[in-house]
């Protein structure tokens, strides 16, 4: 039997406000436990929630960015459940009337464009954090996070593989950061994801029974957990059993998913309109104002990079994966005056590799855009070859010096004097009579050997193009 995978994601993006969604307590990450939890967050009797206008503005901004209708009137609801990380006994969320209605985003998987529908996005408050195991028979509760504004972004079940799910998640991740409504920090839990996944026989219309995977706090974990769950569901289905609708927790240490609780029972949230909050009205003037604050979005930027800089769509979308990276690239192009393709190769290639290796963000790069631009100018004017440039770049990264200083200090200037190059070539030919004979006997592959020897003898400084040309003449 061929199975078709159906995936939908619920993404929780913490909105980057200073204060909480319904109270004036701070939202900063990493504070001492419970020092940012006020009477509203603690659910004390007699307190009332008041909506943070910035959270509303951010939600509206997201709605506009995904081409959705931003509801002129939306309503907050109580989602009732008992858990000590939520002292009120309910979470204030939105249910029937969310702030952002249907929208969509485009993702690219294996070179193919696909539209993923977004059902809705709604505002809600985050819960606190519980820590188990540190106290004998007790659970510790930190309510600093309780009341932090969240935008829950619910997708349609439009994804057909873990790869598509990751592409969609990355798209939303990049979008919220472009919009500056969420810092996207997955380690700190600012951007989290639950995945709904089911299988059905290929060709069948009706959806199979789904499970919900929780605790997916990195792109890699989402992909791993989904792949595990697909295998598990196939095993269940092919041994003629039924998939049970349930919530499963992904355990990254054991790399397994396990059942958390039966969903039917837990899902009885008895939503009702929160009588403490009046309907939220978003006036057209407010929306117009938000529209003027929209930045150039990833898709538009990618398209512009293709047109303006003549880059492949692959390069362009790598560069626009974050707003900061795209800005860095454009600065390099502007400051160096070099060919955009050369700049793109360095930003996507060596620079990104160094950043990854050191676990740094582009904003923390040891080589700032002006310095990289300076080095690229030296490639463009033939002072150094691309190969030597790698050495220069590495030295720039370590020392923070300008390319020119390093080229000078290390004597890395490219040899373009054909007399000097010829001299090296003659030596190499003299030292390798056997290879010369082979080459002249028709073994053309040996040409590469000679190029290598000459470059080595010149310590990589000979201009490779000249070496090629001169070698060809001499070897005949």
């Amino acid at each position, binding site marked *: 039997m061929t199975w078709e995978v159906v995936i939908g994601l619920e993404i929780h993006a913490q909105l980057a406000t200073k204060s909480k969604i319904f109270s004036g307590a*701070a939202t900063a990450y990493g504070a001492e*436990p419970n*020092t940012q939890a006020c009477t509203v967050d603690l659910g004390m009797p007699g307190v009332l929630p008041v909506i*943070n206008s910035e959270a509303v503005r951010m939600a509206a901004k997201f709605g506009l960015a995904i081409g959705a209708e931003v509801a002129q009137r939306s*309503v907050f609801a109580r989602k009732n459940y008992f858990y000590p990380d939520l002292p009120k006994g309910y979470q204030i969320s939105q249910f029937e009337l969310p702030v952002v209605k249907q929208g969509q985003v485009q993702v690219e998987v294996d070179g193919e464009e696909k539209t993923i529908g977004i059902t809705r996005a709604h505002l809600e408050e985050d819960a606190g954090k519980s820590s*188990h195991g540190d*106290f004998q028979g*007790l*659970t510790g509760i930190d309510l600093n996070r309780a009341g932090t504004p969240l935008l829950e972004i619910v997708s349609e079940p439009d994804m057909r593989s873990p790869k598509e799910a990751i592409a969609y998640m990355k798209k939303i991740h990049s979008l919220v950061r472009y919009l500056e409504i969420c810092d996207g920090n997955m380690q700190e839990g600012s951007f989290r994801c639950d995945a709904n996944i089911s299988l059905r026989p290929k060709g069948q219309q009706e959806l199979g029974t789904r499970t919900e995977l929780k605790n997916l706090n990195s792109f890699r974990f989402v992909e791993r957990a989904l792949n595990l769950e697909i295998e598990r569901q196939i095993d269940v289905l092919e041994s003629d059993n039924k998939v049970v609708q349930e919530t499963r927790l992904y355990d990254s240490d054991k790399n397994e998913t396990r059942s958390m609780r039966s969903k039917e029972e837990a899902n009885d949230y008895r939503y009702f309109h929160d009588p403490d909050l009046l309907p939220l009205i978003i006036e057209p003037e407010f929306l117009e104002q938000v529209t003027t604050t929209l930045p150039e979005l990833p898709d538009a930027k990618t398209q512009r990079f293709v047109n303006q800089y003549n880059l492949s769509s692959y390069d362009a979308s790598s560069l626009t994966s974050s707003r900061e990276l795209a800005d860095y690239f454009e600065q390099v192009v502007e400051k160096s005056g070099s060919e955009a393709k050369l700049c793109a190769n360095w930003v996507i290639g060596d620079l990104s590799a160094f950043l990854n290796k050191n676990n740094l963000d582009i904003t923390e790069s040891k080589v700032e855009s002006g310095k990289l631009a300076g080095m690229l100018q030296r490639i463009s004017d033939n002072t150094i070859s691309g190969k030597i440039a790698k050495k220069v770049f590495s030295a720039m990264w370590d020392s923070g010096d300008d390319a020119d200083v390093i080229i000078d200090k290390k004597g890395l200037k490219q040899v373009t004097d054909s007399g000097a190059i010829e001299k090296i070539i003659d030596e190499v030919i003299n030292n390798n009579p056997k290879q010369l004979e082979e080459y002249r006997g028709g073994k053309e592959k040996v040409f590469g050997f000679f190029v290598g020897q000459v470059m080595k003898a010149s310590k990589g400084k000979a201009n490779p193009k000249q070496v090629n040309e001169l070698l060809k003449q001499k070897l005949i």
Partner: protein
Amino acid sequence: MSLPKEEVEKIANLAKIALTESEISMYTKQLSDILDFVEQMNTVDTTDIIPMAHPLDATARLREDVVSESDQRDHFQNIAPQIENGLYLVPQVIE
């Protein structure tokens, strides 16, 4: 419409309310009466009516995104049954 007794027990359980046998039968009757009343309202044609979200005909006032609360942890934790390292302690919620 008569609500099954089990349903009342389930609702009580979800709301974490302990009911005695006599209370269960009392609430079964009262809740059934409410459902009967809802049934009666269901016969009214509400096609063009926007559901009411709040009894007050007013809309939400928004506040500015400003941190206005200071740290009053010690004050709040004074009345907490059990605390440690700044955390509120509660009976363990997972096995």
